[in-house]
C-alpha cells in the first residue's frame, strides 16, 4: 500500500456541553489540514465516522453537513459500524485512494454523547446489538460482562486483573492533555467503584464522551512518506453473542489482525505501539490475546507486570493515548483517534507519553461486542 498520513488533528475529549458538533469538526479538521500543510481544495474525499447522530441528535446526512461546515466541495458521506465507525471510515478512505478515484482524503470521526441522559445513550448504543439482546434488557457493559465472566471461568482471570488495565490506561491518560480523564487510579478504587454489570465495575468501563479526530491521507506519489498505512482490514462475526462459537475471544479481531499482519509483512512481536479497543477492561485483555501479542489467558499477568505500560515496558506499549478507558470513547471518533495517536507517536509529538521507539504500530477498533473489527498497521519510514 502507498498511503501516507499527511496530517492529524483532534479536539479535547470529554464532556463538552458548550461545544457543538460543527465546532468539534472544524477544530479537528483545521488542525489536521494545517498539520498536513494543505488547504480545503486539496481534499477530494471526506469520510465521516459516526454512529449516533441520527439516534440522539435527529440528524443524518452528515457527510454533506460537515462538507458544508468545513468548506469542502468534494465527495462526502458517513460510514457506520457502531463503535468501529471511525476505523471503518479510515478503511473506506484508504479503499477510495487505492481505487485511484480519489487522491487525498480527510477522515473525520465525531460523536456527541453527553448531551443526553445516560439511559437514552445506553439504549441508543444497543442499536449495535441484536433485537434479542435489546429485549433481554441487556446493555453493552452487560454483553462485555458475559465475555468477562467467560474469560474468568476459562482462564482464572480475576477482577484485579481487569482493574489493572484501567489503572494502566488512566496512567497513560494522565500523560495526555487531551484525555477525558487525566487522574491516576488504583486497583482498590476500581474494585470499590459501583457495579455496572457484574463483574464489571464503573471504572472497568469507558465513559460517554464528546470529541472529534481527523486524519488526512493521500496516495500522491510526491507526498512526504514519513508515516504510512501499511495494512487496513475489516472482519465480522455474528451480530450478537448468543451465536458465537467462543466467548473467550473475538474472532473478528483475530481474522482482521491476521490479514493485516500478513499484508504488512510483519509479526505481532514487531509492533512498538498498539492502540487497542478497551471499551471495557476485559476488551483490552481479549485484544492483546486475539491480536497475537499473548497466548490465550496470558495477557492479564503481562498487564499486571507492567509489560505494556509506558516507562516499564521493554518493548510494546499499549494504549499510550489512555485508550478508550481514560482518553474517552466518542464512539465514531475513537477509531480515527487511534490512527492520530499512532502517527503522532511516530512523529515524536506526544510529550510526556512519547515512547522511545515508535516505528511500527497497530490500531484495533471494534464495533458492538465483536461483530466488527478493523485493524490498521501504521509505519514510520526513515
Amino acid at each position, binding site marked *: 500500500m502507498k498511503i501516507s498520513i499527511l496530517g492529524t488533528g483532534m479536539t479535547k475529549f470529554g464532556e463538552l456541553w458548550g461545544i457543538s458538533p460543527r465546532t468539534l469538526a472544524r477544530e479537528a479538521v483545521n488542525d489536521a489540514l494545517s498539520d498536513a500543510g494543505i488547504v480545503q481544495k486539496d481534499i477530494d474525499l471526506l469520510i465521516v465516522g459516526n454512529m449516533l447522530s441520527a439516534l440522539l441528535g435527529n440528524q443524518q446526512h452528515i457527510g454533506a453537513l460537515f462538507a458544508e461546515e468545513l468548506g469542502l466541495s468534494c465527495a462526502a458521506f458517513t460510514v457506520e459500524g457502531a463503535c468501529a465507525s471511525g476505523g471503518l471510515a479510515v478503511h473506506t478512505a484508504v479503499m477510495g485512494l487505492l481505487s485511484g478515484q480519489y487522491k487525498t482524503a480527510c477522515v473525520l470521526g465525531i460523536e456527541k454523547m453527553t448531551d443526553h441522559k*445516560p*439511559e*437514552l445513550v*445506553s*439504549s441508543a448504543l*444497543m442499536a449495535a446489538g*441484536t*433485537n*434479542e*439482546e*435489546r*429485549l*433481554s*434488557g*441487556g*446493555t453493552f*457493559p*452487560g454483553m462485555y*460482562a*458475559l465475555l468477562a*465472566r*467467560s474469560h474468568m*471461568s476459562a482462564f482464572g482471570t480475576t477482577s484485579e486483573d481487569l482493574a489493572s488495565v484501567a489503572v494502566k490506561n488512566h496512567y497513560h491518560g494522565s500523560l495526555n492533555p487531551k484525555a477525558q480523564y487525566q487522574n491516576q487510579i488504583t486497583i482498590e478504587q476500581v474494585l470499590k467503584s*459501583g*457495579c*455496572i*454489570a*457484574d*463483574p*464489571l465495575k464503573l471504572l472497568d468501563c469507558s465513559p460517554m464522551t464528546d470529541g472529534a479526530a481527523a486524519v488526512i491521507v493521500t496516495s500522491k506519489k510526491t507526498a512526504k512518506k514519513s508515516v504510512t498505512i501499511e495494512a487496513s482490514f475489516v472482519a465480522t462475526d455474528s451480530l*450478537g*453473542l*448468543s*451465536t458465537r462459537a467462543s*466467548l473467550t475471544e473475538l474472532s473478528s479481531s483475530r481474522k482482521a489482525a491476521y490479514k493485516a499482519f500478513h499484508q504488512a509483512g510483519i509479526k505481532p512481536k514487531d509492533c512498538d505501539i498498539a492502540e487497542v479497543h478497551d471499551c471495557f477492561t476485559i476488551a483490552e485483555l481479549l485484544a492483546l490475546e486475539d491480536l497475537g501479542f499473548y497466548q490465550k489467558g496470558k495477557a492479564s499477568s503481562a498487564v499486571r507486570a507492567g509489560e505494556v505500560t509506558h516507562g516499564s515496558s521493554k518493548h510494546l506499549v499499549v494504549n499510550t493515548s489512555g485508550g478508550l478507558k481514560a482518553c474517552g470513547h466518542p464512539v465514531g471518533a475513537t477509531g480515527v483517534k487511534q490512527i492520530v495517536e499512532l502517527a503522532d507517536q511516530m512523529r515524536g509529538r506526544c510529550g510526556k507519553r512519547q515512547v522511545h521507539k515508535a516505528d511500527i504500530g497497530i490500531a484495533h477498533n471494534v464495533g458492538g461486542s465483536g461483530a466488527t473489527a478493523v485493524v490498521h498497521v501504521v509505519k514510520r519510514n526513515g
Partner: protein
Amino acid sequence: MLSPVKIWRNQKKIASLLGAQGELVVWTIIRVPPDGFSDQAPYPVGLIKLDEGKTVIAQLVDVSEGDLAKGLRFRLVVRRITEPSTEGVIPYGIKAVPQTY
C-alpha cells in the same frame, strides 16, 4: 420506539421458543439498565443453551442472584418486556424462569 407491527411480526418467533428448556451458560446482573427497564433493575441476563441446540439470550426472572449457577435449568416463558410506551402497546417477549419454578 417499538413498532406494534414489529411486535406483531415477532409473535411467531416468540411462539416457537415458548416452553423451550436449557442450561444457563453465563450470566451478568444488569445494574444500570437501558431506557424502559428502570423499574426492573437490577436483573440478571444470561445465555441459555437450549436442549434443541441453539443458544438464546434472555432476562432471567423468578430466581435470586445467589442461586444463579452454570448449568442451572431454565424454561422460556412469555412476559412483559419493558414499561409500556405512550402509544399504549405493551411489549411482550421471552424471559427465562428456573425449570423447577
